């Protein structure tokens, strides 16, 4: 049997030590990777879990004139899949009106009135704002809340919030104060966001498997090391005995070794 020859030729103690060190390194690497993977997977579903909604804010700073009205450009409400929640805030705590109307009706309402137009996303959290140019004429604007034009109206003091499923067609949102005061300073649009963590489960499962493998490997190596230690002790004892005995003992041991590796 070749194993018998190997055992006899190789200096037994040094080779075994090298094997043991490599094995333990593999166990450690596996264990660490497993722990990291499980940790990443759990973190994805907990501390790193993305928000289930995403917001963007438009802030009217006022151009040449302070806007009396704020309107959304076509499609801005539909930038992300709805329903969209719109919140208009007025820094001075005055009345705030939010109204949903047909594009024609909202546009007609803004005729000759300094109006800020809220456009698309400039960055993840902010919306572009087109400030009004200098007004050619100043018009008295009634309180939009009482108009017959809107299909949905929300009012409030300091802020107003409207949750809406934008209907089919071209709809715009109008934000205003009572018509005579400056428009709300901030318009915040919030859409729902589907939260997906496709890597979480594979990470946890994979990490778990790696940890399990590490444990199995550790057990195997621990047992192997013990056997080798025993063998080393036995060999040391044998050198003092007769050649005939050594021969028969070695044959027996080689058989054991074979069994061990299996």
């Amino acid at each position, binding site marked *: 049997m070749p194993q018998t020859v190997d055992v006899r030729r190789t200096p037994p103690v040094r080779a075994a030590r090298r094997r043991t060190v490599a094995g333990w390194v593999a166990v450690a690497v596996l264990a660490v990777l497993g722990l990291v993977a499980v940790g990443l997977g759990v973190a994805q579903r907990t501390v790193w879990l993305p928000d289930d909604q995403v917001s963007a804010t438009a802030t009217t700073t006022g151009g040449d004139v302070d806007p009396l009205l704020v309107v959304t450009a076509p499609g801005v409400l*539909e*930038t992300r899949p709805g329903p969209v929640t719109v919140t208009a805030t007025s820094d001075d705590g005055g009345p705030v009106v939010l109204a949903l109307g047909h594009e024609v009706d909202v546009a007609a309402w803004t005729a000759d009135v300094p109006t800020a137009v809220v456009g698309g996303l400039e960055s993840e959290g902010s919306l572009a704002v087109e400030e009004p140019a200098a007004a050619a004429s100043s018009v008295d604007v009634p309180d939009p809340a009482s108009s017959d034009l809107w299909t949905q109206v929300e009012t409030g003091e300091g802020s107003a919030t409207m949750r809406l499923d934008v209907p089919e067609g071209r709809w715009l949102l109008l934000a205003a104060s009572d018509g005579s005061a400056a428009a709300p300073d901030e318009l915040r649009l919030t859409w729902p966001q589907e939260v997906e963590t496709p890597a979480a489960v594979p990470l946890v499962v994979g990490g778990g498997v790696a940890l399990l493998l590490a444990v199995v490997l550790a057990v195997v190596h621990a047992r192997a090391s013990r056997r080798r230690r025993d063998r080393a002790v036995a060999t040391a004892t044998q050198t003092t005995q007769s050649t005939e005995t050594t021969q028969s003992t070695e044959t027996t041991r080689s058989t054991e070794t074979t069994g061990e590796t299996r």
Partner: protein
Amino acid sequence: MSRRRTTTRSATTRAGALGGAGVALAVLLGGCADAPLPEPQPQEVAGAYPAVTAEESASVHEAVAADAAEADAARDASLLEPRVAGSAAELRAARYRLQELLPDAPAPSPLGGTVERDVVPAVTLPGAQEGETPGRAVAPAEAAATFPRAWTTITQADGGVAPQLSVLVQEDARSPYRVVTTTPLLPGAVVPETLAPEEGVAPLAPDAGGLVLSPQDAVGQYASALGDPDAPEAARFADDPFRQVLLQERAAADAVEFFSLATSRSVRPGSVVATPTADGGALVVGVMESRSVQAVEEDGAVLTLSEPVAALAETQEARESAAVSWLEVVALAVPPAPADGEQAQPVRVVGADRVLSGAQAR
């Protein structure tokens, strides 16, 4: 021993694979942050749509009825302003005045109640074709040009009163719908079937063709027919109780000895509103102003004034002249223009109202 080496190698491979997965995950997470920002999603331009939804219609009707009832109860025309304007407000104000002067003067017909017809205006987005998806909203000036919008309605209030045919107008985007004209339907009058498509109805222009008379001409010629039973225009109109009453009054005034009678009647500019009917004709509402002057022809003759005229003129009799002004509203069913070889159908009067708006006597 060779098997043991294999185990060590496979552990290394696994470690590499897990490391790779980690890197892939990091790339995936990093990639999310760099995804392009979503753009606004403007929707397609669709066809016409009704300017007023059923819900809005109900709320407007309710507001009109409430304001009118409040003003009627207080006999205060200033309370009408939010929802009743134009000739509708003038007729009510004149009735309030008569009610103050004469205990028996009738109150205005109530507005509101069950909505029997609602012909709401259709609106289309100007400057864009159907199916386009412009990223910018329509220019405010162009949008403002879709006003005024007129809406014809028939309501039946409780209490056995005649149904009211009313025209509501939204002058501009920032105005509410206001009743500008209203008239009770004449007893037994049949209003031709009106259109009620989902997208609303585009009103007809006062000079619209395809009718036996354009809406403006129909009201104008009816005004002539009211003044003279023998006028050629009179033949175009089916007989109606309103005209009968006015012609009888005219004949009586004409018969007064020693006094001459002169009557003028005109259609108030901009008052004619027409809505198409299912038969290809139109339902037309218009406002007329008339003034009759009775002047003495023989010195010493005295004209005894009727009670309402005397109340308004603040004198019981006239020795020189008596002038009375009326505000009149009329609703006409104008048939479509006849086909070649067919005879034109007469215009029918389906609603009419009038109120004495002024009187002077010397």
